[in-house]
């Protein structure tokens, strides 16, 4: 096995919280102490950081391979500096049995980057019967979630959480009071009123957060509240964290960098779930990221084909692709002064790896050499047709961005090199 020494690198270490010039040595797929090596790569003073661990990627397999396959998603991830995709179970059929999980795992070998899978929490994500949490965990499911389908029956949810707790399984929930959210396509307020679009109050998120946290407190389950996007939702979360509950929280890059006004004249690429919020909410979430209340940023990569988006706003499918734009979009948070690079990398890499019990997210000796080399200042204008994803539904089409991935390694192997074109 060859060894490589990466020299003249600006090392972004989220664990130590440091941003320093130095060297990193790779041997046999792992990070080792610096020393002589067969190959030397001069990083030219660019940033070298642990690869991104993206929690909540939708790949269209099984069921919608025309929107995204593990092969294309893997390429997009590699180009975006993502070395681990944690995939969602909201496929067709739903990943809710050891057999469907096995199928997805087999298909996932076509990906250039590491793939882990989440399972549904209830069969068919229908909110009635719990899945075989034990078997699924043994088969490799790293977390359990019904995603945007909120389990409305609190008795069912309570039993699921109690059972999951006994297996030390992580449950991921999207907080939303479904009654209030029914039929809504944007956040209620001035914009929704002027555009005549059905809106949901941010209150729906707060009620979802409060309900879920009450059950977490009662059951003691390890819980990740995904997609906390409003100031109203952050308040109960802060209280729960202060009380010492085993709860973490995440948000999507789109909610950190865009707001409801970006929908403008019914631009369906900006239709996401939950809907984009006000600028005040966006800033509140960015602040929560900086102070650690929000642990994890994800791309919420949701590929949709052109036909699903070329429709009136209310009829268009929700979701946006994000694997390749996660890093440059996140750099906006650094340029705006919300966070520094090591703090950002905690949310992109270290925290999700830790929460899911995965190796990675660190530059420590012995850790897998899952790395990304990037130029944080390189400017470009995004052209959606250049994306490696099969689906091109990005809200950043035509946007000026900064931050280019130069090279990505998974287990010491180069999976993307910009120099190769």
């Amino acid at each position, binding site marked *: 096995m060859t060894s490589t020494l990466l020299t003249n690198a600006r090392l972004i270490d989220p664990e130590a919280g440091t941003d320093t010039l130095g060297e990193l040595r790779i041997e046999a797929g792992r990070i080792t102490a610096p020393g002589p090596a067969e190959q030397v790569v001069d990083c030219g003073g660019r940033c070298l950081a642990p690869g991104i661990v993206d929690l909540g990627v939708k790949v269209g397999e099984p069921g919608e391979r025309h929107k995204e396959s593990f092969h294309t998603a893997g390429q997009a991830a590699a180009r975006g500096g993502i070395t681990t995709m944690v995939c969602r179970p909201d496929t067709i059929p739903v990943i809710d049995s050891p057999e469907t999980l096995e199928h997805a795992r087999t298909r996932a070998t076509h990906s250039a980057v590491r793939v882990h899978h989440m399972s549904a929490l209830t069969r068919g994500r229908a909110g009635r019967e719990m899945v075989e949490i034990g078997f699924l965990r043994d088969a490799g499911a790293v977390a359990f979630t019904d995603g945007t389908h909120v389990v409305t029956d609190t008795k069912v949810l309570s039993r699921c959480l109690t059972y999951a707790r006994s297996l030390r399984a992580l449950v991921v929930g999207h907080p939303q009071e479904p009654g209030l959210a029914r039929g809504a396509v944007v956040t209620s307020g001035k914009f*929704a009123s*002027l*555009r*005549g*679009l059905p809106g949901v109050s941010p209150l729906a998120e707060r009620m979802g957060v409060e309900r879920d946290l009450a059950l977490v407190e009662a059951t003691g389950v390890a819980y990740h509240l995904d997609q906390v996007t409003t100031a109203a939702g952050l308040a109960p979360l802060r209280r729960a964290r202060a009380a010492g509950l085993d709860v973490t929280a995440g948000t999507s890059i789109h909610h950190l960098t865009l707001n409801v006004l970006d929908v403008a*004249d*019914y631009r369906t690429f900006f239709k996401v779930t939950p809907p984009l919020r006000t600028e005040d909410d966006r800033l509140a979430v960015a602040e929560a990221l900086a102070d650690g209340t929000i642990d994890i940023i994800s791309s919420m990569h949701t590929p949709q084909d052109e*036909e699903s988006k070329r*429709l009136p706003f209310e009829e268009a499918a929700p979701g946006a692709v994000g694997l390749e734009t996660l890093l440059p979009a996140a750099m906006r948070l650094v340029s705006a002064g919300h966070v520094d690079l090591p703090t950002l990398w905690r949310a992109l890499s270290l925290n999700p790896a830790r929460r899911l019990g995965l190796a990675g997210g660190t530059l420590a000796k012995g850790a897998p050499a899952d790395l990304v080399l990037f130029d944080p200042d390189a400017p470009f204008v995004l052209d959606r047709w250049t994306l490696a994803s099969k689906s091109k539904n990005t809200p950043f089409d035509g946007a000026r961005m900064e931050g280019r991935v130069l090279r990505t390694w998974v287990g010491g192997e180069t999976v993307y090199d910009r120099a190769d074109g």
Partner: protein
Amino acid sequence: MFTQRHLLGIEPLHPTEITTLLDRAEHYAEAQRRGDKHGDALAGLTQINMFFENSTRTQASFEIAGKRLGADVMNMAMQASSLKKGETLIDTALTLNAMRPDLLVVRHPHSGAVNLLAEKVNCAVLNAGDGRHEHPTQALLDALTIRRAKGRLHRLTVAICGDIAHSRVARSNLILLGKMESRVRLVGPPTLMPSEVAELGIEVTDDMAEGLRDADVVMMLRLQKERMDGGFIPSEREYYHRFGLDAAKLAHAKPDAIVMHPGPMNRGVEIDGTLADDINRSVIQEQVEMGVAVRMSAMDLLAQNLARA
């Protein structure tokens, strides 16, 4: 001055464009009254009415307006057509576009659908109502009716009453009246009020007496049957008691205040039948008459811009 390619809403219009539209409509209204009904402004042009939502009145009004100006008018009942076969809105639009129409009149149940369609075709598109978003010709005909009754559009107090939340008529009207520097009050139960409209600088109240006080114009909106059954308001009779317009509530407005309704009316739900028929107060029939004139004006001006393009 009128520089628009399409009439998608009131929002994109400049106040002088609104005035231009109304002046031209006034000209057509007078001509109609003289019995001089036919013109040739649209001679040789093809007008297609695409209605994805049922409408008798608006469709008839656009059809008459087109025919009076010499256009070849075709009506397409879209519920019965290709959408049932799974064709998307954009494909339908492209198909019709290939037939080279000059004017496309579109009504659709979803907000923004007409904007989407306008991006894909070469002809002039007129929004005949999209979801809860806008219904620009309705607001223009209301404005013309008001201007004829009051002699101006500025410094008036206009109370818009009823189901504001689901109303594209209310949206277009409040945008237009704001642009023309009149004062708008929205009156209705809070369950039928859009969120945060007060922040747009509009007065909002759930008290008819307060809302109608010293109003020059009282505009009633239709309450859809499906919203009367306890979902948004407790009952039809409670709604009529609190928000239905009758002589007693109208007494809070100015003595010469006019009463308007975009139709079709629910007599005894949002408006007292006798009041609706009172020729001294109600301008409801004139609104319908002005509808034809405004649509002639809009299509005439858009056709002129089409010729220049």
